């Protein structure tokens, strides 16, 4: 072993270089409070490592990206863990970087001659935020899509530069495929080497000026290795254990595929941007630009200039009352704004479908659909059709389904096309839809119903209704009942059934038809809890015939 080391050392001087790095003199007052910087570097390494692993199985195009993330977390062993590490690592990275900054701030370690070190650190903080912003879009689910819509809109508000920055993000007319590619390029190609270079400069500057000592530190200096390195290692280990636990315990959600037509979705940014989001609410109308751009801009500017604002000599930690007050006020403001933002966030329809039931507006377009067509919408969602057919007026990989040519407007053309797209449309990149014929008929029926006028209304059908219609179809309820003019008339038509019966009655009716309707020929149905729930909710939403 020694021989190999000597061989390498003789040719490269590597051992000497490492020793010079490790046996650096540090002030006797160094200690536990200075371990955060190393932990931040360690987390950057973790992000590069896990990010690289994700990239091995990630398709950087909208739509496909969603499918590949799904593939990573469902089909690949350990994929969920790797994604968890990357996701929670990003959040922890930000926390660690801010803590590092807070420590430097409280100790006044940015003072002359260390101003440049501080400012490079500020740039690194901003880049971490850009990492978070760009990475947020990459799973291409509803959360990613709508979150980025808000981000790009805010950018557009910036005076003078706004429209240009929006164009740079390819987001002049909403989040587009171009936005996606640019975010991906920033996140994976441009920013990582930039951060490496800046970390290099940052550490070089720390070394050049030495670790900032305490004011009254006159004790003999010590070596960085091994005592301080050991303390750093403890910090790294604790942070890593927290990260690993989070990645194992806390599931990273992958919502529904990004759906630009989903008007019910309430976009929210990542938690560390919530305070900005909340600040925005205090500024209405023409003042909005203040909350969106001016205030954050001023805050960043002040942060950069801290070493020039606070120019006095180093004083003891205990005497830095102003710095402490400032930091505490900052933390309080951040916490307050974030809590307020969380408290005022209504749950999303994806999480709380029942909420839709209570809203009694006009009859929605989807409520007028016969069950087979609503079932077809279920397949439309399951098959992620919206990935390539995003809807009227939106650019997608596939054609706009509301504007299909007349010769395609029949099941005889659509069904073979679903089964085997490229045999009907040579060169089509559409993947085949693997469903049985009955399901394809429903899917066709739904697609044929689409027009530019009704599309939004149909697509907004809540999940419970679609699932309910699927249960209705699977149990062949239509063999006896009619909804919206489709089905047999052996039993009563179910339009407006919610006006005649309530949920409890329906449940009892399914379980024991004789009990609620003596003499009925309806057989009993044993449905599982989810199916029963969806079916009842769906039926109760049916409008009166002709209503």
């Amino acid at each position, binding site marked *: 072993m020694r021989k190999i080391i000597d061989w390498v050392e003789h040719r490269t001087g590597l051992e000497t270089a490492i020793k010079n790095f490790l046996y650096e*003199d*540090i*002030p006797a007052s160094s200690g536990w409070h200075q371990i955060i910087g190393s932990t931040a570097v360690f987390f950057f390494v*973790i992000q590069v*490592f896990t990010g690289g*692993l994700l990239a*091995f*199985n990630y*398709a950087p195009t909208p739509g*496909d990206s969603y*499918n*590949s993330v*799904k*593939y990573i977390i*469902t*089909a*690949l*062993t*350990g*994929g969920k*863990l*790797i994604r968890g*590490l990357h996701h929670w690592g990003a959040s922890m990275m930000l926390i660690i970087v801010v803590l590092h900054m807070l420590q430097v701030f409280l100790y006044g370690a940015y003072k002359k001659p260390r101003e440049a070190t501080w400012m490079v650190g500020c740039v690194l903080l901003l880049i971490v935020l850009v990492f978070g912003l760009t990475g947020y879009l990459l799973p291409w689910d509803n959360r990613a899509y709508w979150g980025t819509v808000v981000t790009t809109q805010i950018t557009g508000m910036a005076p003078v530069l706004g429209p240009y920055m929006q164009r740079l993000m390819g987001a002049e007319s909403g989040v587009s495929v171009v936005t996606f590619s640019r975010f991906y390029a920033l996140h994976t190609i441009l920013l990582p080497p930039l951060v490496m270079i800046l970390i290099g400069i940052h550490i070089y500057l720390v*070394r*050049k*000026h*030495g670790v900032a*000592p305490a004011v009254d530190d006159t004790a*003999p*200096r*010590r*070596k960085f290795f*091994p*005592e301080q*390195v*050991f303390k750093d*290692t*403890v910090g*790294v*280990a604790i942070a*890593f254990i927290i990260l*690993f636990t989070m990645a194992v315990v806390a599931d990273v959600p992958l919502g529904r595929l990004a759906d630009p037509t989903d008007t019910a979705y309430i976009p929210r940014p990542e938690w560390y941007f919530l305070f900005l989001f909340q600040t925005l609410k205090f500024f209405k109308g023409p003042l909005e630009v203040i909350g969106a751009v001016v205030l954050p801009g001023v805050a960043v500017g002040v942060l950069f200039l801290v070493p020039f604002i606070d120019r006095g000599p180093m004083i003891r930690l205990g005497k830095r009352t102003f710095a402490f007050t400032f930091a505490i006020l900052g933390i309080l403001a951040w916490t307050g704004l974030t809590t307020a933002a969380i408290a005022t966030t209504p749950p999303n329809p994806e999480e709380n479908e029942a909420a839709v039931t209570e809203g009694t507006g006009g009859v929605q377009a989807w409520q007028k659909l016969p069950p087979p067509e609503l079932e077809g919408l279920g397949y439309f969602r399951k098959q992620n059709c919206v990935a390539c057919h995003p809807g009227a007026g939106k650019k997608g990989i596939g054609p706009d389904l509301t504007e299909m040519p007349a010769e395609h407007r029949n099941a005889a053309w659509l069904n073979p096309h679903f089964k*085997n*797209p*490229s*045999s009907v449309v040579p060169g089509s990149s559409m*993947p*085949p839809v*693997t469903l049985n014929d009955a399901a394809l008929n429903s899917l066709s029926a739904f697609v044929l119903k689409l027009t530019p006028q009704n599309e939004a209304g149909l697509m907004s059908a809540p999940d419970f209704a679609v699932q309910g219609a699927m249960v209705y179809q699977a149990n062949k309820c239509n063999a006896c009942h009619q909804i919206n003019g489709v089905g047999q008339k052996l039993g009563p038509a179910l339009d407006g059934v919610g006006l005649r019966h309530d949920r409890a009655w329906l449940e009892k009716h399914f379980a024991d038809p004789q009990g609620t309707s003596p003499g009925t020929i309806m057989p009993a149905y044993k449905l599982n809890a989810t199916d029963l729930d969806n079916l009842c909710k769906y039926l109760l939403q049916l409008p009166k015939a002709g209503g």
Partner: protein
Amino acid sequence: MDEHHSHEPAVELPPTRRKVYTWLIHGTMSLIGAALAVPAAIYLLFPPKTRKEAEWVETADLASLPVGTPTEISFQRNRVDGWKVISEKATAWVVKGADGQVTAFTPNCTHLGCAYHWDDPSHTFVCPCHTSSFSIDGKVLAGPAPRPLDRYMVKIESGKLEIGPPEAHA
């Protein structure tokens, strides 16, 4: 490296404490490295958990196949490829025996995957790459091919030949 601090040499730790610290640093870092490397290796090396649904594709009419002469047929099938299901053209060399039994060979030579063809005069399958040749029942006659031709699963359903996934080769 501030000038005003380099007045005296830095103090060194006693050797035993040094050793303990060094050992702890290496130990902790190795554990963290393992906690990252093991999941990474599993993630990269374990085969994906895709549900393999055997798909059967209806191809040629049994009656249209000549007896005793291999015919290349092409058909469209769906294949799971990573996160995608793709619809692709596939081919098979189909041999119908006098007894009506049908064998369907996958179209690639078992040596390095070149497409072979049926050579009627010599009554063999010949691979143009390294001149492997196979008999009509797929056995290796000459060349570097390591095993007989691979086959698709086949079944006959109301007069039509249906081709399934490739059989696992021995």
